[in-house]
């Protein structure tokens, strides 16, 4: 394995996935908000709500197409860049992707055309139905992609088949109802709702500060305040809390996030601040809140939160056991009827993936010395400082969002949201925050899973295609150039759309008493 090829493959996947994920959360949330706005229009029959729906629909459209464009890359990248991954787990991992296409992509893509083009051709109720189908499609697509990703974090319902040298599904229900996938779905979708609410809140606040389009802005802000409060509470409270006690890797993630190098007596304290030192395997200047972590992570006062050193010791045992399974597989390749080897394999197969970790250091895991096994066991620890800090920034933004939308909700309820200028300014400044939190959350999930592509089953360094550095650089530079250009264009178009305002194509049903400021027309 050329580790340069692995690093470049990971770099490309990270770049394209993080970039794709700039657009997806806004699509998820804004589609739901469009349904709410259009429902108000249908129920009240007031033309201003049609204007509101159509304006945010234009922002949605500009963002949506980039989500589609960058999603194309993702759908094929497992095959192009992660060929061995695709072979090794395609029997399980491909199914949710195919179901996503059939159930979600067709729905959102077919109805999105009618949503853009159907205003004149559909009844009011008909168009609202179409908008709802788009929202349903985008949210279902999140469900299925997170079933796929959840399985990478917790690969249940599958077994290794020595005849085909890959994982095969044994219990599809377990893959579907994977608790980690469900927690991730709620967390991710809620984050998308918060993201869209912040955008609507911030742009509306900008208009209110400028005294422009106030009829549209204050109504939009009301929707954003309520939807955002629900979303931000859900993202934190129902979020990723479950599942951290489920597998060795999930425990390791939690330990890395907390920089817990050793198991602490139960109930463990929650580290608020500290400086993790990887070389010394300790965390300096820790500030801890007693008991809290133990209660959150184990839902009890007497269960321990396992530390990294203890998890590494367990990994060492699993590597040793996995080497026996690996040896049995090599015999079964030659003679699949060998009953004794079959029995050895069955006894140790759940640790087969751990033996593969040794391939980073030695071609044949059976040749590894006990010292090498002990050293390799430390490979299961992800990048601790990165995990530690990503989590803290993400969580801080999460709590800030609750405060922001709590304030928005109170102010809109008191009908004070149009005059409270400090709040309006804060809402504008907050616009980039959900993206920072969302991208950090994605990094936590994926970097926290390292060294695994599939937890306990397939290490990342074995999963890539047999490509060369040259072609990888070609595509990394190519994608960066295309994506960079499109990002600049997209931001400009969204800014222009905001500048032109909601009455670019629609008449103002409530014309402002005074003349509209000149800046609103020249664009």
């Amino acid at each position, binding site marked *: 394995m050329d580790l340069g090829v692995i690093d470049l493959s990971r770099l490309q996947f990270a770049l394209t996935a993080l970039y794709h994920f700039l657009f997806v959360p806004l699509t998820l949330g804004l589609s739901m908000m469009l349904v709410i706005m259009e429902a108000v229009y249908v129920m009240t029959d007031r033309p201003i709500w049609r204007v509101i729906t159509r304006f945010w629909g234009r922002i949605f459209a500009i963002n949506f197409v980039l989500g589609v464009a960058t999603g194309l890359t993702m759908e094929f990248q497992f095959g192009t*860049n992660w060929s061995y991954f695709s072979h090794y787990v395609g029997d399980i*991992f*491909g199914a949710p992707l195919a179901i996503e296409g059939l159930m979600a992509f067709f729905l959102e893509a077919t*109805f999105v055309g009618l949503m853009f083009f159907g205003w004149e051709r559909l009844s009011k109720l008909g168009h609202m139905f179409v908008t709802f189908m788009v929202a349903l499609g985008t949210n279902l697509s999140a469900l299925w992609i997170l079933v796929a990703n959840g399985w990478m974090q917790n690969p249940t319902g599958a077994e290794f088949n020595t005849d*085909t040298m890959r994982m*095969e599904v044994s219990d599809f229900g377990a893959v579907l109802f994977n608790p980690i996938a469900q927690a991730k779905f709620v967390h991710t979708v809620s984050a998308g709702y918060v993201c869209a609410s912040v955008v609507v809140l911030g742009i509306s606040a900008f208009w209110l500060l400028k005294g422009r389009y106030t009829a549209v802005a204050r109504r939009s802000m009301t929707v954003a305040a309520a939807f955002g409060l629900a979303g931000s509470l859900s993202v934190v409270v129902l979020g990723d809390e479950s599942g951290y006690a489920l597998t060795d890797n999930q425990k390791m993630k939690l330990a890395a996030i907390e920089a817990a190098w050793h198991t602490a007596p139960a109930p463990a304290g929650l580290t608020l601040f500290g400086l993790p030192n990887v070389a010394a395997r300790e965390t300096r200047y820790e500030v801890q809140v007693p008991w809290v972590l133990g209660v959150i992570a184990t839902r009890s006062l007497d269960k321990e939160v396992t530390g990294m050193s203890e998890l590494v010791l367990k990994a060492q045992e699993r590597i040793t056991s996995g080497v026996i399974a690996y040896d049995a597989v090599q015999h079964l390749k030659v003679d699949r009827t060998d009953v004794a080897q079959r029995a050895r394999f069955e006894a140790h197969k759940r640790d087969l993936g751990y033996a593969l970790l040794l391939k980073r250091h030695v071609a044949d895991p059976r040749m590894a010395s006990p010292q090498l096994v002990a050293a390799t066991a430390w490979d299961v620890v992800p990048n601790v400082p990165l995990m530690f800090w990503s989590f803290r920034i993400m969580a801080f933004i999460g709590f800030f969002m609750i405060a922001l939308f709590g304030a928005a909700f109170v102010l809109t309820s008191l009908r004070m949201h149009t005059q409270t200028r400090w709040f309006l300014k804060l809402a504008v400044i907050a616009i980039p925050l959900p993206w920072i939190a969302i991208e950090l959350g994605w990094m936590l999930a994926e970097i926290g899973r390292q060294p695994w592509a599939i937890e306990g089953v397939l290490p990342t360094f074995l999963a890539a295609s047999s490509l060369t550095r040259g072609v990888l650089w070609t595509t990394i530079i190519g994608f960066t150039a295309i994506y960079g250009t499109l990002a600049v264009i997209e931001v400009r*178009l969204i800014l222009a759309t905001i500048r032109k305002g909601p009455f670019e194509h629609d008449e103002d049903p409530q014309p402002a008493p005074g003349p509209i400021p000149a800046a609103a027309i020249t664009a």
Partner: protein
Amino acid sequence: MFDYETLRLIWWVLLGTLLIGFALTDGFDLGVAALLPFVGRTDAERRMVINAIGPTWEGNQVWFIVGGAAIFAAWPFVYAISFSGFYLAMFLVLAALILRPVGFKYRSKRPDAAWRSRWDWALFVGGFVPALVFGVAVGNVLSGAPFRLDSDLRAFFDGSFLGLFTPFTLLCGLLSVAMLVLHGSAWLAIKVEHGAVHDRARKFGTIAGLASLALFAAGWAFVAYGDIGYRIVGAIDPSGPSNPLRTTSELARGGWLANYGLYPWMMIAPVLGFGGAALALFGIRRGSESAAFAGSSASALGIIATVGLSMFPFILPSSIDSHSSLTVWNASSSAKTLGIMLFVTVVLLPIVIAYTAWAYKVMFGRVTTQEVATNPDFY
């Protein structure tokens, strides 16, 4: 419910169905985009062309995405080996396809001519390049790809990007372009009002139809007399484990025509390929737009089915290793996954087709100059 052998056969048919579904729906979007700078001379004309596919192309493109995902789920070996083996070609397709969603949406956002012209050419690239590369890829599948598998079933490649382009694969690429441009012009003839654009669409449709006939015939001759084709040596176990190392294959000149001797009914496919293109030409000349579209659809169906049936049971032969070729019997998912995915498809696909038909019904009718000028929702 079904045994492993039957499931594999069903999924081979479904794979073909998805590819044909893609060609019949998004195929005309690709063809129309490739024609855009030529059938539309003014901005108003080009907007008419764009809005003839604007409301429905997005749903059509999902056939491509679902096709990829279904290959992943049902034929993981094919997904893993073909997309990494044709790595730079795949990048080219994706880079071109990325231009489409943004091109359709962003072009109309600004009035200036240079901006719109740039997006017109971006859309042209988004139609022409994938159409060409898909054909070149099919040509390479027919010729065999230079890959081999080790005992862990990891794939390695000996080929290069430029090696993908041989006279035969370029011929396949041009056939693909001609087939989709014919389909695109047939769609335009149905969808735009009579006038300059309509006339030009019929003109390009005639050229593409004649080119389709000539190139399909040339491809057939190459397969019959050229150095191409494979056959399986030794016993086949259609219910055996999915492990290509257990199959032996070898190069066999004319091997791609062997099936037509064994199963003469398969001749339906090439007959449809030729007959459809002829019907499309007849329809275009007589001004019968439904005949033209039915013909171009039948032609695309026939040409793609010809490739699949000629190669059966091969899906992707290896040109450098006799124990790596992928076939219907050695490259599928497990029986359990095939069964689950069959159930999901049988339930969902009819629903998809039903609401797609409704979407086309809502947007029924020709795009007019009047509507292009006044409808604020038009691109």
